[in-house]
């Protein structure tokens, strides 16, 4: 008997990126397949292809052994494929009933909505699968966990057999995750088949029948929970590429530059993202913060740089209390910040390269005299920095948006490093860059460290962390689980810590 669903050689290219590279996948009736991989590994792209939101450049989709064409979500729904998106596709001002019926409305006479009939079916589905929800509630008034139930009901309402759950636990509280796992089990018991996308190892091991790991758009391996451990999955996910070597003399730690005490920070949804975090960074050392993305690193960096409110705790830089200080005050205290999202937070994309080069100093002499900008000086400085930091650009007057990612990053680095700085906070400084740029930026960070600058490096790339750091902190679910000297850390040990397992990690590390 052919498998329920089969993908053969799916390839999808985006400008400059190979998102999916000849991916094969099979799903059997009544099975939970976990699709594991880091952010950007191509999981969501693959599922969007299956749901008809993207068209693949190459490859075939087979259902029950027959080749099918999926050009739109309509086709996918017709074939019994339903998707619960990572970012819910719900209309906040509509009721649950309206959201569920939208697109497949039950009507009287083909025109008028029959809310009552739809409501009855929703009640039926929700009791059958223990998905409690009030069909008349407005979606915007519901907690996230319940909104997700609405999404699942929406898929079941369309009589889907194959359910794609795209990182369903990413937005849930631990209690809601337990609920969700129950629901998934009950769905499978009733004959549904599920593709479960995640980068959380423990959930995958608990729930899946089979596990497939994607890395850089390719299948990195396939396994089953009884043959895999969190450590083996972590290494499959992260990969063991050649570690870039950086010439690094032993650290000469000096005075404490950054001192963080019992920091608590909330995320955009007002949930605690950073819990009771304390650490110090000394002059002349690099503290690497490792961790799977979304474990509070973003919020931590934003809090340290004054971009996010600190709920409680204390941040001091060179013995000065700068908790909840204005970003400019923190900057003038000698902090350089290389932000995680260079296009959103690092540059003003429509501004020229020259303007971007002085974004942090334009208001001070010598770049400003009173209220007037000194354009000649700004221009000559920019030209000199473009030269010095090897930014490849035809002109310093073109907008930053027209540069490649690596050169954009070099503009940011040039701006941040061309000032006397005491503290460097770099978040994913090499994300998406080519090998040459990575090496260049790595060397610059080490150079700053050798000059006596304290550096905090946040990155989900273990290789990068291990290459550059003198000490390594691992963040998991808002906490720092451990801070290890770099020489004691191993890929396996860090991988386990990144998955939240403390016991095995300390053993593996020692």
């Amino acid at each position, binding site marked *: 008997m052919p498998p329920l669903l089969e993908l053969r050689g799916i390839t999808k290219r985006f400008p400059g990126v190979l998102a999916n590279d000849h991916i094969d996948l099979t799903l059997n009736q009544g099975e939970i397949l976990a699709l594991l991989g880091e952010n950007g590994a191509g999981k969501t792209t693959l599922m969007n292809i299956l749901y008809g939101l993207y068209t693949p450049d190459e490859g075939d989709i087979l259902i029950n052994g027959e080749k099918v064409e999926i050009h739109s979500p309509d086709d996918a729904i017709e074939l019994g494929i339903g998707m619960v998106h990572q970012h819910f596709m719900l*209309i906040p001002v509509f009721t649950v009933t309206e959201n569920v019926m939208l697109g497949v409305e039950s009507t009287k006479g083909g025109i008028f909505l029959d809310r009552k009939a739809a409501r009855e079916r929703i009640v039926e589905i929700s009791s059958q699968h223990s998905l409690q929800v009030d069909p008349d509630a407005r979606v915007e008034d519901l907690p996230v966990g319940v909104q997700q139930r609405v999404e699942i009901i929406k898929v079941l309402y369309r009589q889907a057999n194959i359910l794609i759950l795209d990182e369903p636990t990413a937005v849930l509280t631990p209690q809601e995750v337990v609920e969700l796992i129950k629901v998934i089990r009950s769905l499978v018991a009733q004959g549904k088949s599920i593709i479960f996308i995640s980068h959380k190892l423990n959930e995958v091991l608990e729930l899946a029948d089979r596990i497939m790991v994607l890395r850089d758009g390719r299948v990195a391996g396939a396994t089953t929970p009884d043959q895999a451990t969190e450590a083996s999955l972590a290494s499959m996910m992260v990969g063991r590429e050649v570690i870039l070597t950086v010439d690094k003399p032993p650290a000469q730690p000096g005075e404490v530059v950054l001192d963080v005490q019992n920091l608590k920070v909330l995320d955009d949804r007002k949930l605690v993202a950073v819990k009771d975090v304390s650490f110090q960074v000394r002059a002349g050392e690099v503290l690497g913060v490792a961790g799977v993305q979304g474990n509070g690193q973003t919020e931590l960096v934003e809090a340290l740089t004054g971009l996010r409110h600190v709920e409680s705790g204390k941040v001091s830089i060179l013995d000065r209390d700068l908790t909840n200080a204005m970003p400019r005050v923190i900057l003038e205290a000698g902090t350089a910040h290389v932000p995680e999202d260079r296009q959103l937070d690092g540059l003003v994309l429509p501004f020229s390269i020259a303007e971007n080069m002085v974004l942090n100093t334009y208001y001070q002499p010598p770049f400003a005299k009173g209220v007037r900008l000194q354009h000649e000086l700004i221009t000559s400085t920019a030209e000199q920095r473009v030269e010095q930091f090897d930014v490849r650009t035809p002109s310093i007057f073109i907008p930053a948006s027209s540069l490649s990612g690596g050169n954009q990053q070099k503009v940011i680095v040039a701006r941040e490093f061309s000032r006397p700085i005491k503290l460097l906070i770099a978040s994913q400084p090499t994300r998406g860059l080519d090998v040459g740029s990575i090496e260049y930026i790595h060397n610059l960070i080490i150079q700053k460290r050798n000059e006596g600058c304290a550096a905090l490096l946040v990155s989900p790339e273990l290789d990068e962390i291990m290459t550059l750091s003198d000490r390594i902190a691992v963040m998991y679910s808002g906490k720092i689980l451990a801070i290890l000297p770099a020489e004691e850390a191993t890929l396996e040990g860090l991988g386990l810590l990144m998955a939240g397992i403390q016991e095995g990690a300390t053993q593996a590390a020692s």
Partner: protein
Amino acid sequence: MVEELTLAQKQQLNRRRWIIGAIVLFMAALILQFGLGSGGSKSTFVLSSQRTGVNIPAPDLVLPTDVTLYSMAALVGLAGVWQTLRGFKRDTVVILVSVSVLTAAFLVWATEDKSLNLTGMLVSSVVRATPIAMAALAGIYSERSGVVNIGIEGMMTMGAFMAVVFASITGNLWVGVIAGVLAGMVMGWLHGVLSIKYKVNQIVSGTGIIILALGITSYLQRAVLNLNPELNQPGPVISAVAIPGVWRIPVLGPVLFNQSPLIYLMIVLLVVTHVLLYYTRWGLRVRSVGEHPKAADTLGINVFRLRYISVLLSGAIAGLGGAYMSIGAAGRFNEGMVAGKGFLGLAAMIFGNWNPGGAFFGSLIFGFFDSWQEKISILQVGIPVDLLGMAPYIATMIVLAGFIGRARMPAADGTPYEKE
């Protein structure tokens, strides 16, 4: 779960309470000021109607000026005191009621020892509210689907022009109405192509449509209509149709049941739009597209098609509004005759929170103030006519300032949809 208010939130609420209380008390003082020195005089409001030779009799409403004003002042004053000390739950309603009383008080004061035809004023309120309501309905169709339509003014201008020309050529006013509707749709289609297909900024596209319409119509008027005056003579305006049985009811009859068929059509459209938006499959889909087009798209709903249809309907209704202004009310086309009615309609739409009923109510307020300023200037109260002419627009600002915080526009309004 009981939400605890923080101290700062409480202080803010208190401040809001006091400010609104102070405004209401100020209005009470103003009314009292009107009342002072009007001892013994009377204000006469005529309720009978004399139109097109038909007389619908009704007794006059005669009020003692001072007593009426003092009681109004007392009423508003009490509300102000209560608001300041304890606070009403829905403070916007307090403001709305106080402004209404203030308006009535102004009328009573202005009619001191004179008489004013109240029925006539209400009739003209409805007449003046009609193009505004049509513009508001046009706005609702477009914006509920997520396309901001600031070009309604231009669509109305084109509708008004084409209606006159075609009515003059054919000698049939209804052909003119249809031409007006089609002209509006053409402009709507243009707006749709620019803003949906080419994703031009919708404010820019809408502004372009206004300028285009003004330019085309004023050029054609000078180059064609002025040389061929017979093209600007559609004949007498579409005549009022009395609804049998009810049109002789005093006050109500002339106001509601003896009006132009286009006004009835507007009311029918109002009801139809409400039913369409909230009780049909099409309406649910249109609203979903205006709120979260991507979600609608993942459910297999054609976002682009729904937006095109909505913008075309928007243009059609705006064209109808223009036709009403030219062949339905003025009897000819004049340059710039739409005179901001399209924008007032958008304000009424926002006032009504993008709901047909609320938008209609907003239009009536604007229509009322338009007619109010006209009647007051006839009474010659010693306030320059130009200042009184500002009344509808001041009313717009007060209404928007008081309500815009509560209004909630469709979430995706103004955002072009891009498929990945």
